[in-house]
């Protein structure tokens, strides 16, 4: 009688529901945490969740509603950190041309003088970096929607590609491209744009993360499809829409 319990249980598998959940829970956590510090599943996670996140981002985005701006006194110039992916290109402003091509009826090649003859728009916005820092900056330049309108895009245009003098490339959705505060800027904090901030011409916008805002822009191509190459950082894993 004393050994009853032992006798009855001896040949039975001992994996009860509770034990099973315990083991699967512990090994599941180990599996998950094994990814710490290694880029194990980030791609899969990104591919699974990014389309959902983008849907929500597009849903909350108001294409033509201007973003609230700041006052000049709120600018702290030292807070804007310079990020470059390669090196600073040397551009002769006198020789510089901005090309607008792609699916347009009127391809353009504009000099800096021609761009600066267009109406100047100034805005004081929060520039938000993917790294987590942010800085309030004044940008002055031309609304991108005006240049796009000059090029007369075809009705099926959905995206804008931006090429930079240093090889950097980016692509934007057309709604964000045409936002009234998406500028091609040649001024920063009231002064001519410094070369390390993208002179002679850079993208500036309050509605996209910093890596979307290409410096040293030389070519804008308006297209109806997105190629395999979406952007320098996007092709390495950053999200594409990157809306704020």
């Amino acid at each position, binding site marked *: 009688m004393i050994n009853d319990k032992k006798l009855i249980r001896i040949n039975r598998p001992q994996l009860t529901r509770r034990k099973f959940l315990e083991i699967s829970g512990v090994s599941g956590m180990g599996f998950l945490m094994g990814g710490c510090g290694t880029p194990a599943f980030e791609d899969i996670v990104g591919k699974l*969740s990014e389309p959902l996140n983008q849907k929500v981002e597009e849903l909350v985005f108001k294409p033509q509603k201007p973003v609230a701006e700041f006052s000049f006194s709120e600018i702290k110039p030292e807070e804007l950190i310079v990020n470059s992916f390669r090196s600073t290109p040397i551009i002769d402003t006198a020789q510089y041309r901005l090309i607008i091509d792609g699916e347009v009826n009127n391809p353009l090649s504009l000099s800096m003088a021609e761009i600066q003859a267009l109406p100047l728009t100034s805005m004081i916005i929060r520039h938000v970096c993917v790294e987590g820092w942010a800085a309030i900056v004044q940008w002055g330049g031309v609304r991108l929607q005006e240049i796009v309108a000059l090029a007369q895009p075809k009705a099926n245009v959905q995206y804008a590609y931006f090429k930079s003098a240093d090889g950097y490339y980016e692509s934007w959705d057309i709604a964000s491209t045409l936002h009234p505060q998406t500028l091609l800027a040649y001024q920063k904090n009231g002064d001519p744009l410094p070369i390390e901030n993208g002179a002679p011409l850079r993208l500036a916008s309050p509605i996209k993360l910093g890596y979307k805002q290409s410096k040293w822009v030389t070519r804008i191509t308006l297209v109806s499809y997105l190629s395999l190459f979406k952007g320098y950082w996007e092709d390495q894993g950053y999200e594409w829409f990157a809306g704020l």
Partner: protein
Amino acid sequence: MTSTVPPKTRNLPTQAIGAKIFHSCNVVSLSIMLTSGLQIYNANPVFGGREGLHIPSIFTLGGWLAGGRHWHFAAMWLFSLNLLWYGIYVLITRRWRHRFIGGNDLRALQKSQNSKRLIYAWHRIVYTAIIPILLLALLTGIGMYKPVQFSWVVDMFGSWQALRIVHFASVPMFIIFTIIHSLLGRKAGGSQLTESMFW
């Protein structure tokens, strides 16, 4: 052989299945939120910027900034939807009336000599307090994720840096909570109570 005397059964703690699911989802989603959040933090530490204090990579998830963000924004759904349905569940089952800190617990803290009762009271205070902490983490997170579409969140905290600090503060708060919560839980009901919260 068959007639064994049933062993004396202790009254095992039981939990509602809804509470177990909520609890387990929280353990998984918050582990991911915390580790991937520290990965994002490392790109530009809240205190001191790039030269500031970095978190050792053993505690970070995602490998690099983009990976950390992917994990963070994916787990965000699990975490926030879990919190949302739990809120609804608490309301419709009327658990809020007797599961969280109440006047009787506060009275017990002042008068009771029963050490078990005191532990219960303290424990309820602790796990009731985590709810606003989690909601604050969510709110500040929304403010940083979409500072344009939800600019009122940023305005509420005054500045971007203040918003970052409050969001980051949820890390130590949550870690301290977890330690106290599991210690008090163990004191109140031993490992059986702890287990009953999961399966």
